[in-house]
């Protein structure tokens, strides 16, 4: 499994990396711009990410906009349906409104409220059928 972690905060990013490392290759991006570059590169190489963990509040390009562009890119390349990358939004605030937006506008697969906990994250991945156990 190929994973992209998008998170501006070093500690959160590291925590995610620690949890997910056993399940696949983890790449990191510190903001939306980097994330988009990585996403585009992976698509062009023909080995797209399977999972993106995306923080909502980030400098430069926030998570919502990043998500929107990720989907746009996929659309351009004719990728759709269950081939779309699974996106889990992570958010510091339990802000249902922005989660709603991500779900409806960006068709993300799930969301997690920080601080990220190992069992909730893994439960989410199981639910999405990305890991077995």
């Amino acid at each position: 499994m190929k994973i992209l972690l998008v998170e501006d905060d070093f500690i959160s990013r590291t925590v995610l990396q620690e949890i997910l490392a056993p399940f696949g290759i983890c790449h990191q991006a510190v903001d939306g711009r980097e994330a988009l570059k990585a996403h585009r590169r992976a698509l062009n190489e023909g080995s797209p990410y399977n999972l993106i963990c995306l923080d909502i509040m980030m400098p430069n390009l926030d998570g919502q906009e990043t998500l929107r562009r990720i989907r746009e890119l996929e659309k351009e390349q004719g990728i759709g349906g269950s081939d779309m990358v699974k996106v889990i939004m992570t958010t510091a605030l339990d802000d249902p409104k922005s989660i709603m937006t991500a779900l409806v506008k960006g068709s993300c697969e799930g969301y997690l409220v920080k601080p990220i906990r190992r069992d909730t994250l893994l439960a989410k991945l199981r639910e999405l059928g990305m890991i077995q156990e």
Partner: protein
Amino acid sequence: MENQLSADQVEIIQEFIQECTDLLDNLEPSIVAFGELTQNSDFSPTEEKMPILHEVFRLFHSIKGSAGFLNFSHMATTAHAAENLLDKIRKGEQAMNGDHVDLLCRTCDFMRATLDQVACQLNDQTMAREADELTGRLKLSLGEPRPASAATETPAGCAEPVTPDTGLLDLAVTPEMLAAFVQEAGEQLQEMEEGLLAWSRDGDSNSLIGELFRKMHSFKGNCGFVGMADLERLSHRIETVLDAARSGTCPARTRPADTLLNLIDTLKGALTDIAGGGKGRIDGLDLYLELLDDLLPADRQGNVSPPAVPRLGEILQEEGLVSAAEVDRALESQKQAATRAETQPAGPGGIAKRQDLRVDVEKIDNLINLIGELVIAENMLVHSPDIEELELENFSKASQQMSKIVKELQEVAMSIRMIPVAGLFNRMTRLVHDLSRKSGKKVNLITGGTETEVDKTVIEKITDPLVHLIRNSMDHGLENPEERRAAGKEEIGTLRLTASHEEGEVLIRIEDDGRGLNRDKILRKAVQKGLLEGDGAGLSDHEVAAMIFLPGFSTAEQVTDVSGRGVGMDVVKQNLHQINGKIDIASSSGQGTLITLRIPLTMAIIDGMMVRVGESRYIIPILAIRESFRPSPTAITMTPDGGEMVRVRERLFPVLRLNRLHRVAGAREALDEGILILLENQGRNVSLFVDEILGQQQTVIKGLSGYIGEIGQVSCVSGCTILGNGEVCLILDAGNLTEINPVTI
């Protein structure tokens, strides 16, 4: 659960509803488009169609995610099932057929119904049954390895969309459609009630009953359109009774008006039920139907009785209990909805996308009215008699500047009321799809010019006519596939619906490539119905075509629930008349029919020609004028019954003297001293005799008060305007003028 929801959460749910409604609005046409692709054979996704499939997939995906987030589990599971189906199709593991499309359409309907439910109750608990059924069917369609055989096996319900009791039909409506239906139907019932009261009070009058009949026909059509089977059945029977009353074949002892009044109450009750989210069931429907049979002449009872009356009664009684509970709950939720209505921006406005502001239409009407007044006041000021003789350089500069601003202001105010016809056309896409499934005729609907903007009132007024016209095209115009093949045409018929602007008018064209109008059949029918004297051999094709708009005219051999009673076209004419619209029909046998609706851009201002008769001034809408001329005495001919005709290029037109019609004193009497203005409306002509033409001017239309309006109906006046000098001037109604017989005035 409701009690624990905070204001914040309610707001999120409302946002969810709004977003989902927008998504559904955008995608429904795409889904329907798949329907066209699957008409002949199964559809396998191709390169260019893939993006649409992806879009649809994403819609359900988004709904699944967000519904799950908000704990609307029924919605989430249904969306999940639809998503799975789409994914299989996308991957090519399964080909898409018509039933899949139907299923997806139903899923959309279900989503809308659920959103509606959520809007009232903040949860989707009540949709459990529908959700289970739909999910089951979606899963079933997944289980089929190759859907070639599925066409015969899967459609437990899809093959029978006309069967009233599947419960699925309740879903085949969007919340907006339902809301619009409830409102409109309520108004129609109200009008019918008034009509029935008048009937009961004043005794039989053919025009009154005809009017009632027309309204009931429209009402029935609407009920059928939104799938309210019980309402449709009851109103169909009432209509039959009214038809019998109109033709005078009702048994003499009966006084139908009172019975019908009670039934109107029943219909109203059912409507209230629907407004609250109920299914619009009518308890003891068959009892009412029997009651109505008593009002019918014996020979008409048999052929209208439904085949399965006795058993239905038991079922309905059982359901009567359910329905009573439903009404209670419906009332409850209605209250909730009412309190929420103030805070909730419902409907597909798309707040997030555009900076929209919801404004009460009344405020805008008020604004436009005031601007109209401003135009008049400005006129009065600039042309004030006090300064008429003076040379005022600065004043005239300032007044010119003001005129310019007023004109711009007027244009901006008008544009506020304009909305694109896209929404209206989208509704028609769905109508065509449903009708096509119902009748088995294959149709490809092509819409064009959807961005054309039209006054909102106009949109409301042409919705009904458009529905009628499309139904007619589908029912009478387009042939079934076998006939088309035999005639050497493409099996799939084409229906083109386009809108465009043309010189201050909006043109809406409905064009089909069906069998066209049958001149002989129309003439035969017209003679048979007593609508025509003689054999009509001298009539032009155009005039023959116009006959289909006469009340009571229908050439269909059989009355179906789609059309054939000959009221629909009358409704079309009446509605268009109200907005000063015109209808043109052109048809060539075997090639198809083109119907053009010409509608003035706005109903508030027209280009008018001012004329004088005696001391009175009148405005004639310029669009109705063909030409004006001073006749030579030799061009005038007298008819045996005392009428006058004028010859223009070898055609004779009746002369109508406006001074006699309105009893104006001091007008000219000799035709060769005045001016004849040749008017045309729907293929009928009349030449109007006036003293002189004063000039052309932009006319701000003011309605007449209700009591004058009634008189106005008789005297061919559609409204009035206020002139610069404060004088009131009547606006003539070309439609009425061309219809009256000059000899009788």
